[in-house]
């Protein structure tokens, strides 16, 4: 039933393909390969970069330089200083005065209804920081040296009789190409030219190759000037058109190169390399972002699946349905994708339907319309409810598809778990920076040398820079990790402090050690258990964590039920932790153990596989750290120069058993200066809602806990929001941020204190932006970029916090959606980087702030294993690690 699982449709990114990443929903059980585990957001540390730099402590000197930068920037925004943000509407048209390089007039009405009322006079600041070592980076952007300077005329084109195929429409219109002047763009509906027709409505006649006469009505819609966003859309169209000159084929949204395809014959898949481009306004200029992607194309059609399943006639229909329902298919003739919702076995392609008043069979239809001959006239038909269309017109609109013509897309779970396949694929898709730069340059060169592409670009007076854009980045100093006895050690240039655990003790451990705990193991594994326990003891002792002898429960087989029974037995003795020693990975067993421990019993559980023993002490060290976390103590901390700070992270994971459900998890830190612990809570939410509906009750719970522990509410709150796409930022602001701000103010008023200083930061892991150092390597951890490639309408920055060993690092984008935290951009960046050091499953930096990583981990655990809300008593423990 492998085909039943749907793969994702996004083209695969190189760094996403590691075999570990594909096992994301699997239980995390220690595997033999040392510190490798399936949290892919942490990346492997490179040991090659061992050079130690002197870690000058980041002193207050650095802070003062940021002020200098602030004033420098002030000139361009001086006008804004006069008007407070909320009362901008008072700035009348009379107050216009020249300012900055581009600002001419400032007669703006209050049109932005998403504005939040902020009464504090906003001073002029910049979003660029200054701290850290300056480095020169390259990024995968090209500058636009020239762009069309004249106005572009926009027309709407109608054909009578109607033409379905865009290709034919273009062909018919091209008869009049001469009258459109040099360079015209036509996407099937819209026509862009540089020349204006005399009349607003122009009617033309044309004849297609088939000899059909068409009437073309061209209506003028308006002009597009260089000042409006639709100008960018046209630029994108021009670039796309020019890329078509490279003989690229469009699949879905992006263009791919079928000539350069890589065939992985033994797996019957193909990889099509392609380019993802987008032109948009960046910090100062309009830039072209170009990214190399790959599309996995399966050679299989739904018909192949049908053939495969038909061997067993009695269960044939049922099995086919099981395999096919929910699949996303691609139809080559119109390049569209559909989700299969049903199979109609009673019909065949011979069935007729009404098409423009005539009854035609599917066979005739496809022959006439697409010139496709359907080979098997007896295959069943597939039914797809076209969802997006359904919204606009009729809710019951369905699309009927022919199995033979439907190509299956995506990877099945079977394929994903096939390590050979994934490795073969990642060889092609995972590119190191050097190769990626080379590919980007090749792309650019091809655009500049292919006659057809050059023509399009010159017609529109568009010129792409030949070099990748240079960006000034900064590398933040390595952070200091705080261990017990106030020992502070630098995380080093590669941000990895694994080796420090050889001679450092953990920050906090229970005074009486782990004194009451149990181990469950099958009898035949008892010798391995011995090894594990002695390793654990040795490793933990070295880290100042005393582990007493556990209560050992030996079971006679390794069935799930035996484990559960033993777990119930142990739980009556109120242990602090239960360790389950299992002979092999088994998702069901893992789920059952976790469920019993977290949902029914409120006991943290630790599952360890037999294979862990292979790596002896290093794995044992890691398990010991984890066990310490699971009972609520802290292995290490960083230096945090803010008191009364609470950081929160929120993420959502879909439920694996019920497609309507998802789980949102919130993890919040206490005051990390004095009580380095974290609070977590999970709530069920709807899988259809991007924005969190029940965020506030969760935040409130975290605040109460903070109040309980510190007898006051936090002064500053930094909220890291993950799991939301950049497309819904506006809604996020309206729906979540405003609400949280409002309710926080109310809550603080209740205890009559001033409202907290809050920063609401959206974390995005999947951006197309890449940075390269020295033309050949990845930027080191701690690299911050906050200019050139950032977006002007955001307070955002890119941070590379993780170290990667293979492929190109993908920087994380942080977007400060709302802030009254009163910290300079420098500090916000540094604070974020510091927060990436606190994921206790990994003695290195993570890709996102630890609270987000925890939230994601917790949400995934609940979504794919527990399917229920864990017990409250565990809220302060890292039971989900």
């Amino acid at each position, binding site marked *: 039933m492998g085909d039943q699982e749907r793969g994702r449709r996004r083209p695969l990114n190189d760094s996403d393909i590691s075999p570990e990443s594909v096992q994301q929903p699997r239980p995390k059980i220690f595997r033999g390969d040392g510190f490798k585990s399936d949290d892919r957001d942490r990346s492997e540390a490179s040991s090659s970069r061992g050079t130690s730099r002197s870690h000058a402590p980041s002193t207050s000197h650095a802070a003062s330089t940021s002020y200098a930068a602030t004033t420098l920037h002030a000139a361009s925004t001086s006008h804004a200083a006069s008007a407070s943000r909320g009362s901008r509407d008072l700035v009348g048209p009379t107050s216009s005065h020249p300012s900055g390089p581009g600002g001419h007039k400032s007669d703006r009405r209050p049109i932005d209804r998403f504005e939040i009322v902020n009464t504090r006079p906003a001073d002029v600041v910049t979003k660029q920081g200054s701290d850290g070592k300056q480095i020169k980076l390259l990024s995968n952007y090209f500058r636009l040296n020239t762009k069309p300077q004249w106005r572009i005329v926009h027309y709407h084109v109608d054909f009578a009789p109607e033409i379905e195929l865009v290709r034919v429409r273009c062909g018919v219109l091209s008869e009049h190409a001469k009258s459109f002047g040099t360079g015209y763009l036509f996407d099937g509906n819209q026509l862009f030219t540089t020349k204006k027709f005399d009349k607003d409505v122009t009617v033309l006649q044309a004849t297609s190759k088939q000899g059909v006469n068409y009437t073309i009505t061209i209506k003028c819609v308006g002009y597009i000037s260089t000042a409006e966003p639709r100008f960018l859309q046209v630029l994108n169209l021009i670039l796309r058109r020019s890329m078509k000159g490279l003989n690229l084929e469009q699949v879905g949204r992006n263009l791919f190169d079928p000539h350069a395809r890589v065939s992985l014959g033994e797996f019957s898949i193909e990889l099509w390399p392609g380019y993802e481009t987008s032109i948009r306004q960046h910090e100062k200029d309009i830039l072209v972002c170009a990214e190399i992607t790959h599309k996995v194309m399966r050679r299989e059609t739904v018909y192949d699946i049908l053939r495969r399943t038909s061997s067993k006639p009695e269960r044939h229909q049922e099995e086919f349905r099981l395999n096919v329902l929910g699949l996303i298919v691609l139809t080559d003739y119109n390049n569209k994708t559909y989700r299969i919702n049903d199979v109609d076995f009673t019909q065949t392609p011979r069935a007729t339907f009404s098409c423009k008043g005539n009854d035609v069979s599917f066979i005739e239809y496809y022959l006439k319309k697409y010139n496709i001959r359907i080979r098997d006239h007896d295959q069943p038909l597939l039914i797809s409810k076209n969802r997006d269309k359904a919204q606009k017109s009729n809710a019951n609109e369905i699309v009927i598809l022919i199995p033979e013509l439907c190509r299956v897309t995506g990877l099945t779970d079977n394929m994903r778990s096939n390590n050979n396949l994934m490795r073969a694929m990642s060889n092609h898709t995972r590119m190191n920076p050097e190769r990626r730069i080379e590919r980007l340059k090749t792309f650019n060169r091809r655009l500049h040398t292919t006659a057809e592409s050059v023509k399009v670009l010159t017609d529109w007076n568009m010129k792409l820079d030949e070099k990748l854009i240079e960006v000034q980045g900064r590398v933040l100093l390595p952070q200091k990790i705080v261990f017990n006895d106030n020992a502070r050690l630098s995380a080093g240039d590669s941000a990895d402090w694994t080796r420090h655990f050889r001679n450092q003790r953990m920050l906090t451990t229970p005074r009486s050690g782990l004194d009451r705990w149990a181990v469950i193991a099958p009898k035949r594994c008892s010798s391995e258990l011995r090894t594990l326990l002695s390793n654990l003891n040795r490793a933990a002792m070295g880290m100042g964590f005393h582990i007493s002898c556990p209560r050992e429960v030996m079971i006679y087989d390794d069935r799930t039920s035996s484990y559960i029974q033993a777990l119930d037995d142990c739980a009556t003795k109120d242990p602090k932790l239960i360790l389950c020693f299992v002979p092999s990975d088994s998702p069901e067993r893992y789920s059952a153990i976790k469920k019993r421990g977290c949902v029914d019993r409120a006991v943290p559980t630790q599952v360890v596989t037999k294979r862990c023993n292979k790596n002896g002490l290093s794995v044992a060290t890691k398990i010991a750290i984890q066990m310490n976390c699971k009972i609520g103590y802290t292995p290490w901390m960083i230096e945090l*120069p803010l008191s009364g700070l609470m950081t929160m992270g929120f993420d959502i994971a879909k439920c694996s058993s019920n497609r309507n459900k998802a789980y949102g998890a919130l993890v919040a830190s206490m005051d990390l200066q004095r009580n380095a612990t974290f609070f977590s809570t999970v709530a069920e939410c709807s899988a259809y809602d991007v*924005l969190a509906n029940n965020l506030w009750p969760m935040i409130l719970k975290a605040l109460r806990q903070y109040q309980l522990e510190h007898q006051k509410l936090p002064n500053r709150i930094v909220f890291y929001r993950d799991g939301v796409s950049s497309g819904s930022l506006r809604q996020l602001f309206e729906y979540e941020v405003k609400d949280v701000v409002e309710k926080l103010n109310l809550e603080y008023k209740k205890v009559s204190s001033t409202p907290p200083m809050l920063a609401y930061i959206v974390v995005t892991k999947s951006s197309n932006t890449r940075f390269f150092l020295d033309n050949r390597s990845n930027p080191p951890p701690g690299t911050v970029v906050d200019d050139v490639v950032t977006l002007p309408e955001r307070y955002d920055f890119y941070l590379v916090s993780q170290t990667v060993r293979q492929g190109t690092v993908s920087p994380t984008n942080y977007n400060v959606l709302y802030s009254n935290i009163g910290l300079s951009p420098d500090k916000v960046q540094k604070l974020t980087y510091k927060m990436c050091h606190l994921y206790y499953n990994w003695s290195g930096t993570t890709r996102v702030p630890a609270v987000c990583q925890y939230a994601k981990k917790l949400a995934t655990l609940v979504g794919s294993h527990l399917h229920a809300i864990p017990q409250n*008593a565990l809220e302060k423990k890292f039971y989900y690690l």
Partner: protein
Amino acid sequence: MNVMDANDMVCCPYNKTHKMLRKKLQQHILKCREIYKDEVELLVCPFNKAHLIPEPDFLQHTRTCIDRKIVAHYQQSAPAPLNEETKHEKIETEENWDDEYVPDYDPQQYVVNANIVREPNGMFPSQRKAFIKQERKRLLGEDSDEETTGSEQNMKLPTKANSTGTQRPAPYKLPNRNR
């Protein structure tokens, strides 16, 4: 078809004739909340923001809301006991940011004057039109070259019925849309 598909289309709580896909509801409500703020009064459930309840049913709802358990959970199972042992000596740092107060960066102020193309996101169509018009003035204004000034003048003729920036008709035809 399976059960989920039936739920796929939902009604807007403000206006039952508004039907949409389930996943579009949140986005839609944001708009309707604004449009109907004077006409329809719905109370927001304290446990789940998506629950918009007319006042008469509100009390009943808060008692039976399925998301009540997020908070009511504490009544059924004990909360985490306080563990004083996890507290440690204050980790002193060389830096101290506590007293720092730097005004926060507001990108809106930058973009108002910068020489950049702005997107009219999240606006009603009429606002979008006005916005684009102003942006043209702002960026191309007096200093723009002849060609663009030419377009400025020509502009006024054809952009009446189907102005640039609005490809689709106004989503909600309502009397009180005067923002």
